[in-house]
């Protein structure tokens, strides 16, 4: 089997694994009834638990998906979700993530350039301090600082603000990675040889250095996509955006177990799609990935 196909299959298998693991974990939950516990769930919620998960039925683990396919509502009427609503909420979160991606790339480029400049001067310590500051900042902190301007005064667009706050850490992470990779490649012999033969700095960068930096950048795309999507959970909560992250948090808080199963699997599916896109780009950009290794 070629390494590309092997990698693709390895990614794809994640979706059924997550679907089954989350289903059987949720199906095994002892949801306590009003008569037998201090922290009770309502009768309506307990009924939706049995109905939506198809407990005790053969192929019961397909029941949540079957209901979504038929356009029926998962969970209780107030806090449940239909297939259309799920797709709308997911597209909202993905949209925020897609706006955040170019912002993250802008942060990355800016930080990589600044880091290269700082490395030569007395600001070198900032090259290490900024990533530490970004890494130590959970998304909800900048979201809370921006929130009064967004939610209370309405002076900023919530979606754009969410994209802005979730793009910071991935941007700095990418910037650090690309900066390091660029520096390593620029110090190699082939760069010196190309320059000595009279090729301009821009042409060396474009033709020789960047093709060798792409694989490092592609390796970082999946963790960055994960960070953007996971970060959107906190940003959506603070800015009150009614998208996928908000749906997920509310489903967990309200014990909407069927919604949790479906949302977890959907999230894994989105990550797998991103990984497949990355594999395709790697296959296209990096000839080494097309070689069959012994």
């Amino acid at each position, binding site marked *: 089997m070629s390494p590309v196909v092997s990698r693709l299959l*390895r990614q794809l*298998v*994640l979706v059924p*694994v*997550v679907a089954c693991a*989350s289903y059987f*974990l*949720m199906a*095994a*939950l*002892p*949801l*306590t009834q009003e008569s*037998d*516990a*201090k*922290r009770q769930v309502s009768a309506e919620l307990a009924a939706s638990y049995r109905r939506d998960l198809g407990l005790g039925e053969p192929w019961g683990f397909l029941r949540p998906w079957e209901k979504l396919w038929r356009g029926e509502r998962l969970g209780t009427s107030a806090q449940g979700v239909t297939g259309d609503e799920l797709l709308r909420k997911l597209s909202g979160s993905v949209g925020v993530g897609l706006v955040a991606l170019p912002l993250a790339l802008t942060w990355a480029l800016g930080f990589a350039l600044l880091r290269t400049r700082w490395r030569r001067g007395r600001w070198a310590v900032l090259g290490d301090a900024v990533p*530490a*500051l970004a*890494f*130590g*900042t*959970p*998304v*909800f*902190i900048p979201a*809370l*600082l921006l*929130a*009064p301007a967004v*939610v*209370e005064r309405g002076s900023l667009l919530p979606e754009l603000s969410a994209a802005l706050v979730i793009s910071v850490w991935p941007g700095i*992470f990418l910037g650090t990675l690309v900066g390091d990779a660029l520096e390593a490649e620029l110090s190699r012999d082939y760069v010196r040889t190309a320059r000595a033969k009279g090729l301009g700095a821009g042409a060396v960068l474009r033709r020789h250095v960047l093709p060798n930096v792409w694989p490092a950048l592609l390796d970082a795309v*999946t*963790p960055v996509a*994960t*960070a953007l*999507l*996971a970060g959107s*959970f*906190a940003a959506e*909560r*603070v800015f009150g955006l009614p998208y996928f992250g908000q749906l*997920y*948090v509310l489903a*967990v*808080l309200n*014990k909407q*177990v069927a919604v*949790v199963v479906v949302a*977890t699997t959907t*999230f*894994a599916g989105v*990550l797998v799609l991103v*990984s497949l896109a990355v594999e395709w780009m790697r296959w296209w950009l990096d000839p080494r990935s097309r070689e069959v290794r012994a």
Partner: protein
Amino acid sequence: MSRAPVRAWVGLALLLGLGGLSLAAGRLFPEALAGTCPLGMDLQRPDRTVCELAFGGLWVSLAVGLTAGALSTLLGLGVAAVARLLGGAVEQAVLRGVDAVFALPDVLVVMVLQLAGQSLVDSGQGAGLGPFGLMVTSLALVGWAGPARMFRDRLLTLESQEYVAAARALGGGRAHVLRVHLWPALRPFVLAVFLSRLPTAILTESTVSFFGIARMEPMSLGRYLGTSYAALVYEGGSRVVLPAWGLLVLLVLGASLASQALTRGAGQAPRGR
């Protein structure tokens, strides 16, 4: 003394100093914090100062991070050791499992595990786990994949050394080589990996607690901000958020400094968030 160990000591001093001060101020001398706080009273609880709640919650976040980091490191070490001992198809299957766990974001999986754990606790099947134990267990169950991958790669590198080949040529079995020859070389790396897990555990706990899913008592930093979040959104709360942010950054900085310095000493950098 070389530069790396000094950075490690600075990081460890920062971590332990902050944790010790927070514990002492929050539990032993709370009136000292209450009487001298320049940040004023809390928005939600007018009888408590911001310093009491933010600085007093720091040690809870640190304790969760330390315990969860230690547990996930031990789990990862065990998985890596078993994978290398058994080798072949079992090792490949374990690695695929590790990749699957590693692919999902920690926050999402911890939320699901918290839901499952809280349902078990509510029905009296929680094996005596309180909110602290539940959070530590959830974080450990999520966080072992990264250390397992790092330890497995490190073991593979160490196994290519000549002294290991010599030990095998002299008839040393896999378990013997692991115990006598590889473990001493792996030990410094274990500490570095443990410290590299610490920031991730602290940040994940903060985020999940902020959502109100974990019921941490006494309140951690994340839970403190989560319980006040409506007031912070509508009234503006930079005097609450900025100190909490500073404390989180200092914790993460301390752990990162120590981890990076120790890892450089052990000859390999731990990966990713």
